[in-house]
């Protein structure tokens, strides 16, 4: 009887694994099969045409990459600073620590659409408006959706991931190094930046990777904060709007009047989004491995 239960359990867990794997292959296989049909160099490098029933998706690729880069530029340094406070300075019993900790944990559980609304209310209607009133009176520049505010909103969304990842790596750096540094007459700041942080670069990069993976795929946060329905120009100014692959997929799916014509386009766009996310991840992983090698040289 015990043997039977044991066997059954093995079979169950194996089949669960197989089901998950086959679902993954089904999704990827389906997308790769249909997505590559219409895929061409032209599709990747040209603008959408004919009400998005023809042409390519280059503005959306460009917009997505730019968004992710801007988002990382904001989220990673800020997240690292918070993580340094958590891991190196905060005392467990301090009130500031307990509150910020709770805020970060809860931030991680907020639905992404709420971040979109937050971005609209906070960045665009408060900060953007204040900037316009102060520096560009009478003009509407920053008080409207733009790639800058979309990136900021996305940064807030990915911040908890960055903070928690970096904090864990900082905590994993042995105390002996901190002690050795302090015992030589280094200040805490010097200790953090010269000894602890250099050993945590891989964690910083892992945080960035996770942020990028999340950020490249999310649509809801940029919905109200900067993604454009259709925009044949490329954003060149922080206050410009941009096209976004994820949003473009939604547009193609729901806003098309001719489903049969857009379907191949849709497949190809999804395929490009997957490949792009994959490439961004690979780049970050390669940089991380480089840094690791360099740090232990």
């Amino acid at each position, binding site marked *: 009887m015990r043997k039977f239960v044991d066997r059954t359990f093995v079979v169950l867990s194996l089949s669960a694994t197989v089901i998950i794997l086959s679902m993954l292959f089904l999704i990827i296989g389906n997308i790769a099969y249909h997505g590559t049909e219409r895929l061409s160099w032209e599709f990747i490098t040209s603008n959408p045409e004919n009400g998005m029933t023809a042409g390519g998706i280059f503005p959306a690729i460009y917009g997505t990459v730019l968004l992710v880069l801007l988002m990382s530029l904001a989220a990673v340094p800020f997240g690292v600073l918070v993580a340094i406070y958590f891991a190196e300075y905060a*005392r*467990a*019993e301090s009130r500031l620590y307990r509150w910020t900790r709770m805020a970060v944990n809860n931030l991680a559980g907020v639905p992404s659409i709420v971040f979109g609304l937050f971005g609209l209310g906070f960045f665009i209607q408060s900060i953007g408006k204040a900037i316009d009133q102060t520096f560009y009176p009478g003009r509407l520049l920053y008080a409207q959706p733009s790639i800058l505010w979309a990136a900021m909103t996305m940064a807030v969304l990915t911040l908890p991931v960055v903070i928690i990842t970096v904090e864990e790596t900082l905590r994993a750096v*042995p105390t*002996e*190094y*901190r*002690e*050795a*540094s*302090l*015992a*030589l*007459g*280094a*200040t805490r700041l*010097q200790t953090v930046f*010269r*000894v602890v942080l*250099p*050993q945590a670069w891989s964690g910083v990069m892992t945080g960035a990777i996770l942020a990028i993976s999340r950020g490249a795929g999310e649509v809801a946060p940029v919905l109200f904060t900067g993604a454009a329905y259709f925009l044949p120009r490329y954003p060149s100014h922080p206050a410009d709007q941009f096209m976004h692959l994820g949003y473009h997929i939604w547009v193609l799916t729901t806003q098309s009047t001719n489903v049969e014509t857009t379907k191949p386009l849709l497949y190809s766009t999804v395929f490009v989004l997957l490949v792009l996310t994959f490439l961004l991840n690979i780049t970050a992983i390669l940089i991380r491995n480089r840094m690791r090698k360099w*740090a*232990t*040289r």
Partner: protein
Amino acid sequence: MGNPVKISVSDANFFYGTNQALHGVSIKIRPQFVTALIGPSGCGKSTFLRALNRMNDLIPGARLEGKIELDGENVYSDNMDVIQLRRRVGMIFQRSNPFPMSMYDNVAYGVRVNGLTKRRIELDEIVEKTLRAAALWDEIKDRLHRSAMSLSGGQQQRLCIARALAVEPEVLLMDEPASALDPISTAKIEELIYDLKRTYTIVIVTHNMQQAARVSDETGFFLTGRLVEFNETKRLFTAPTNRETEDYITGRFG
């Protein structure tokens, strides 16, 4: 008692929260002497050592009552610059802990963070001088820019000593510096201690009584947070005045 004193500790009580780790410790540590602290695990000798350069400050709830003076200056007063104190009172840890950077950068680290020199030539000189003082120069001079992690355990510990010497400390605190090393490396460290005491005041915590007897001029015996006996090393090991000391050094417990 007209002898010069480098570190004077009077009636020191040390607490981790409500847990008292040191009870009324008083001791006078003489300059250019090697002072050994012995005693069983948990007797407070390491706590005492780390109180001298305020490394215990890092532990939340740690607190000292009583007085510790370095050259007559109160180490725990509010005007004491802890950064400066730790530069003057260097520390060698039980487990060698070179930074994961090059050997050169390890030795140069303290010089750089303290802003002692910016000139490359001077830095090179300091690195060579301290590595020679730590009896490591000849072994590593051809690969200074390789990772310190590629050194053996004994070499790593001597590198840590060089790193501590580079900021020109007056006192060296050693927390069981050879306990993780093989006998040959241990002998090298002991020889080094013998050389270094001409320049530095050394306080060494050790588990190894033979080591204490070999390297030190004066020895203190700690038991349950108290300094039971403190005397010339020769006297303490041959004619202890205290019964507990005698039991410990004759191996009856500990």
